[in-house]
């Protein structure tokens, strides 16, 4: 084309192709537009928390939109939190409780899931039905009887009273049963014919093959225990035994309720460990290749 003047035919084609390109791009634009809007809706509280906690001058933290950028940034509020709240103590409690709970959930659920998946025994079907039914019933409702049990045992205000009621995870057993069922039968049968006992089969053959599901179980259990608020707040009376989710909440709705800066800084400190764990493990449950 030598000149910039187009024939009607050419210009029509030009417009059409542009419209086509636009029409093809529109769904994609809409996709990212919706996602962006939803992200803002989901994350604006957290963005506000971060920027306000980093503001040494809290004069601006209620003003939209200037609150979404720190005013005179600094770590003043974080220093005050660490000085006035036994944050390290809470953190150690949270870690200890969550790790012990997770390990024992796995130790109980893995052999039981294996038995349900691999061995036929009398009473299997009713037991499985019972497991599924308990999943359908709010577990909060068993807290009063459990509280009575523990107060009779004299274990109120002990770590064991926080941990023990959460150890029997019906969800964990069903998850592991599913994982073992999906393993290739031939490998297991071959090992059985070679004379491996059931425990050997579980430990050396089935468990290594079901590793991704075990990881899923560990992560879910850990996060759940880490975030649990109500039951620990009921059975724990002394402050030095409280995990983060309980201790921080009590401190920040009690003695420090008036200091917004401290509340927000403490919130960030409490969220960081959970986010860190999530960042390290997210490929297990969010990535597209989770199945492989």
């Amino acid at each position: 084309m030598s000149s910039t003047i187009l024939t009607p035919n050419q210009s029509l084609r030009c417009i059409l192709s542009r419209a086509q390109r636009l029409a093809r791009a529109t769904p994609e634009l809409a996709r990212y537009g919706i996602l962006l809007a939803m992200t803002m809706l989901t994350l604006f509280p957290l963005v506000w928390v971060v920027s306000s906690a980093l503001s040494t001058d809290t004069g601006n933290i209620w003003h939209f939109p200037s609150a979404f950028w720190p005013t005179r940034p600094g770590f003043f509020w974080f220093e005050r939190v660490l000085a006035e709240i036994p944050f390290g103590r809470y953190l150690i409690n949270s870690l200890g409780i969550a790790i012990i709970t997770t390990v024992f959930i796995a130790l109980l659920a893995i052999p039981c899931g294996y038995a349900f998946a691999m061995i036929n025994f009398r009473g299997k079907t009713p037991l499985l039905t019972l497991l599924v039914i308990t999943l359908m019933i709010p577990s909060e409702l068993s807290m009063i009887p459990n509280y009575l049990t523990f107060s009779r045992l004299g274990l109120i205000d002990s770590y064991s009273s926080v941990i023990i009621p959460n150890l029997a995870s019906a969800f964990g057993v069903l998850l592991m049963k599913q994982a073992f069922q999906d393993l290739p039968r031939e490998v297991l049968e071959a090992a059985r014919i070679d004379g491996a006992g059931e425990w050997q089969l579980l430990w050396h053959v089935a468990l290594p093959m079901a590793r991704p599901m075990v990881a899923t179980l560990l992560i879910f259990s850990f996060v759940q225990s880490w975030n649990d608020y109500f039951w620990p707040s009921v059975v724990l009376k002394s402050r030095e035994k409280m995990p983060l989710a309980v201790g921080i909440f009590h401190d920040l709705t009690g003695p420090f309720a008036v200091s917004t800066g401290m509340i927000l800084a403490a919130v960030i400190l409490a969220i960081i460990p959970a986010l860190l764990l999530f960042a390290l493990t997210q490929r297990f449950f969010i990535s597209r290749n989770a199945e492989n």
Partner: protein
Amino acid sequence: MAMPGVHQRHAWIMASPFLLFFAVFTVWPLLFNGWLAFHDFHLRTGNTLWNGFANFVALAEDDSTFHPAVKNSALFLLTVPVIQICALALALLLNPDKPLLGTFRVLFYTPVVIAISIGALVWRQILMPDGMLTWIGATLLGVDMQQMPDWLNDQRTALWSVMAFFCWKHIGYYMVLYLAGLQAVPKTLLEAATLDGANYGMRLRHVVFPAIQPVILLSTLLCTISALRAFQEILVMTGGDADTQTVPLYVFGAAIFGLNFGVAAAAALLLTLVCLGLAWLQWKWLGEDGLLRRGL
């Protein structure tokens, strides 16, 4: 299937440690609750007395606290369709292999890993009378700040605010369930449908939804139960004030403050039955032979 060398007792040995804890801390409380629902229980002396259906009659007549709690629990069920539709829509948007979608997945999941109590601390700041939401509303919509409600203390808005917090906290969880389910939709079927000229809506209706029917069932079931048991979310946001008390909160109030364990257990038993009933209904509607498989 005959399994030489495998004895039933192996299964029992392997299952018994779990079953022991399960029996003591999951099954026993349920049975104890059921038994308690028909008794008067005196904590101080430990005496119990069969009282027939008196506890249930007390519930039926208690229109100052129990009836509002039932109404609030029923309203809370409205979060189920909201959460399910948002989660499924997000999963559908995030499923393709496109740039940045992995990051979005992580962002939407963030509220799930934050403890309820910690998340509530944030939202209580946002929803204060002169909090962030009021400021945003005043700036963007030009509403007078005095006109904005006191979100968590006003009877008209408190329950809805808590429900919004509930959705914020849980959508990511169900999104991940749906993402996992969408992996299982056969690619070949989708391609065949496209070749046959099916548009996006038809592919959803005739290929995707039938394929993820088990996930829709599971996710809706779990969400319904978590809405009915909504308890911690309310406790940390309003403590049950401003007409936000639900049935689980009523149970605890009756037991811990009223020391009326029989009535609490009766309310708990009713809630359990409603949960099982709803689970059964959803099984009928969304299960193997339900609407998604048979067609609407």
